[in-house]
């Protein structure tokens, strides 16, 4: 009987006390501040993406002949299909924005420093997986821009020295966009990357639990104030409020700015303006500023530096213990990202 605790406890041998202890990990006080709760935001959004993604997958058909029509069907014919698609589309945008904001917070507060270097690397992996999920999802619509975006993306990959050709082939399932490309994108988008993200998130949280959350104490905080609070229910309430707020924001966006469909993909006609999704504007503008291989290599170098930043920063701080170089470096990097993104957004070509 489900109501018999003895029966349940026999089968799930965890006592309520153990459960409370497990969940009631003391959470540092600074997490009461909203901007420190940005790690949970992408996780909540990711859960939303999984749910809406499963619903969309019930109608989506990944082939060149059916993809566009199935998205049109979802958008126009299926009950609340437009809403689910809107949630999924805007959820992706907010998730990427939240990951970037979280990473900014971690970077500027130096939370990546020893012994948490590996967790920064996991975070970088999550960022790349998130961006790739966005890219492959955008391509699934099979409208003109998503087709040409994928083609341009593959051509960019082709510019990587030595492995470029292989990367392009792996991405497109051949030399050019073909009948296998969409199904490959679909598997990567709906199975490979989500599983990878779940594993990385699990690893990310495990590391946090093992190492504890980085503790910060503000200068104006009284010394005798308790330095932590309970995860359950206090922090859970915070996350719940964030989750509900996100649902309101997403619903507003899905209703006010619904996901539209552009013209269907036409491999014979190149659109006048090709642009990727906004989160690749930085790379796209960079590629327009510099010649092919140089741009790809320099972008690759930026990614390597980002992965290795905890050790680079460590080396700097060993030589100059009070250096705030990373903060200035971060300010320049963030402004550069914003600048390149806005630049790409405002120009026609």
């Amino acid at each position, binding site marked *: 009987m489900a109501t018999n605790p003895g029966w349940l406890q026999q089968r799930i041998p965890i006592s309520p006390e153990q459960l409370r202890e497990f969940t009631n990990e003391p959470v540092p006080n600074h997490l009461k501040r909203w901007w420190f709760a940005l790690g949970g935001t992408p996780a909540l959004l990711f859960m939303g993406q999984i749910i809406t993604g499963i619903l969309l997958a019930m109608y989506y058909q990944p082939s060149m002949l059916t993809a566009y029509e199935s998205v049109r069907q979802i958008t126009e014919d299926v009950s609340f299909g437009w809403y689910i698609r809107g949630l999924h589309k805007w959820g992706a945008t907010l998730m990427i*924005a939240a990951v970037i904001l979280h990473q900014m917070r971690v970077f500027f507060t130096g939370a990546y420093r020893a012994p948490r270097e590996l967790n920064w690397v996991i975070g970088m992996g999550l960022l790349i997986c998130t961006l790739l999920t966005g890219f492959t999802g955008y391509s699934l619509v099979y409208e003109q821009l998503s087709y040409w975006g994928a083609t341009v993306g593959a051509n960019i990959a082709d510019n990587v020295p030595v492995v470029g050709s292989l990367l392009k082939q792996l991405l497109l399932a051949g030399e050019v966009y073909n009948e296998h490309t969409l199904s490959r994108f679909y598997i990567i988008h709906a199975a490979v990357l989500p599983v990878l993200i779940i594993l990385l998130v699990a690893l990310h949280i495990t590391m946090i639990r093992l190492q504890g959350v980085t503790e910060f104490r503000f200068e104006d905080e009284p010394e005798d104030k308790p330095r932590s609070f309970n995860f359950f229910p206090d922090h859970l309430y915070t996350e719940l409020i964030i989750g509900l707020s996100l649902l309101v924001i997403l619903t507003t966006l899905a209703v006010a700015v619904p996901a539209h469909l*552009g*013209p269907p993909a036409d491999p014979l006609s190149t659109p006048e303006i090709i642009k990727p999704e*906004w989160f690749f504007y930085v790379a796209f503008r960079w590629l327009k500023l510099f010649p092919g291989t140089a741009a790809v290599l320099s972008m690759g170098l930026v990614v390597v530096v980002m992965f290795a930043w905890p050790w680079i920063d460590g080396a700097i701080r060993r030589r100059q213990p009070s250096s705030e170089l990373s903060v200035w470096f971060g*300010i320049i990097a963030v402004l550069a990202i914003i600048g390149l993104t806005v630049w790409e957004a405002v120009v026609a070509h």
Partner: protein
Amino acid sequence: MTLTVKRNIITLLAMVFLASLLMVQYLEVARKQEEAGLRAHHIAVPSSSKNCVDCHKNVSPGIIDHWTGSKHAISGVSCVECHQAASDDVDAFEHYGATIAAIVTPMDCAKCHQDVYEEFSASHHAKGGNILASLDNLLAETVEGARVPFNPHAATPGRPDFDSKMVDGMTFAAVGCKQCHGSKVGLQTKDGGIVTVEELKPDASGKPTNLAILASIAKDKDGRPILDPSTWPNTGIGRINLDGSLGSCSACHSRHDFSPRRARQPENCGKCHLGPDHPQKEIFDESKHGIAYYDLKDHMNLDADSWILGKDYSQAPTCATCHMSANIRGGKITHDPGQRISWTNRPPVSLAMDTDADHKIVTETDPDKRREQITDTWEQKRNRMKQVCSTCHTTAYVNNFYVQYDNFIQTYNEKYGKPGTSIMKALKDNGLLTKADFDETVEWTWYYLWHHEGRRARHGASMMAPDYAHWHGTFEVAERWYTEFIPEVRHLIEDARKAGKVAEANACSQVVEEIMNRPEHKWQVNPDGFGAKAPEFPIRTASAGSN
């Protein structure tokens, strides 16, 4: 650096990031809405036309608004690009620093659309102005109106200016026929005459070679050549332009937005293809094609760039779908609708659409000579149309449709078209009719029979419209034939005989009675011979009649 400072840095950067994200999302959403046709494209007015746009925004905002919604505007093609003229063009004038012409001809459009220009120029559409010398125009200019200006015979209260002005009897043609078929554009001369392409004798580039006549052209106070109001405004599809080019692209594409969407819709063709003699628009409306179109037009991607049947849409066809647009069977877009028409149902007797190198219908009857003249056969044209049909229909369906259509045309031709033509020729050759057309009842009767009802029937059959094929078609043809045409012809013959023209009357009577004694007309005198059982004719079948 304290944690508070860092917090402030993060807050500031996050705010800038979120603000830029909002802006980028706004721009991206706007761009997608433009692509989906839900928002007007952002237009950057090219410097070449900035002054024009600024001024005309106030002077004639409709023009600018239409242009703003056009593909031209998105592509940077603006006022000057289309209206620009050379100073030696006959209709050129200076307009606030630019040399322009009011009329944009197909030759102007050819600067960017050379292929379309060549296809269109070869089409019957472009030659629509030839109507100006036909029987139809005789009706409007002479029978309905007057070919000569005449004095007003009575005062028009409130319009004293009318009393001193000659009545322009050609206006019925100007406002009627020529608005569809096209006018021969004319410029007024200082002495009240008109200069047209015939006097200007333009060369291949459209420049007048008869320079002597240029000095005679009248200009207004701003130096603008005065266009003759009986010939302009005009967007007739066969307009004969001052530069020698034929036609008007705006006949279908409507200035100044040149919307492909509009040109793809049957209502657009219906400006001209409707009415008693060629009601193609109404015929389409009652056909299964038309019914499907009105039900499903919202799903037909009418704004698509390529608009390929079978790829971009397949819900229903429009006029443009079958006669002009591309399809996945290999049919490429053409601006010559005649390329897919295998019968011409315009004349009293339908003709197979074999055409020569000049795209003229071959009328030669000797088989060998005919073969030499033909460059594009009716079968090639039909096969092009079948490519369209087979996007949605089976081969057997399409072939059987053509069997029905061919049989219909042949029955009309043999029972009414050719016999009626023979009878009218016999009456004229034997002097039973005067030389003037439309001065005798039987001429009106015969005109109604072939030009209105006969054409209607044949067009109805060509586009699967049963009511036009039958009740507005062959029923009225038969009624006119048996109750008006033949009795009137017999009366004429009887009157001629009484007037002493016995030989002539006998010759005509022989033609008429030979026709009326043919099996297809004999039902009147031998009603029992038909009706109980259909006679077995060696009629055409799909396997024999179609490829």
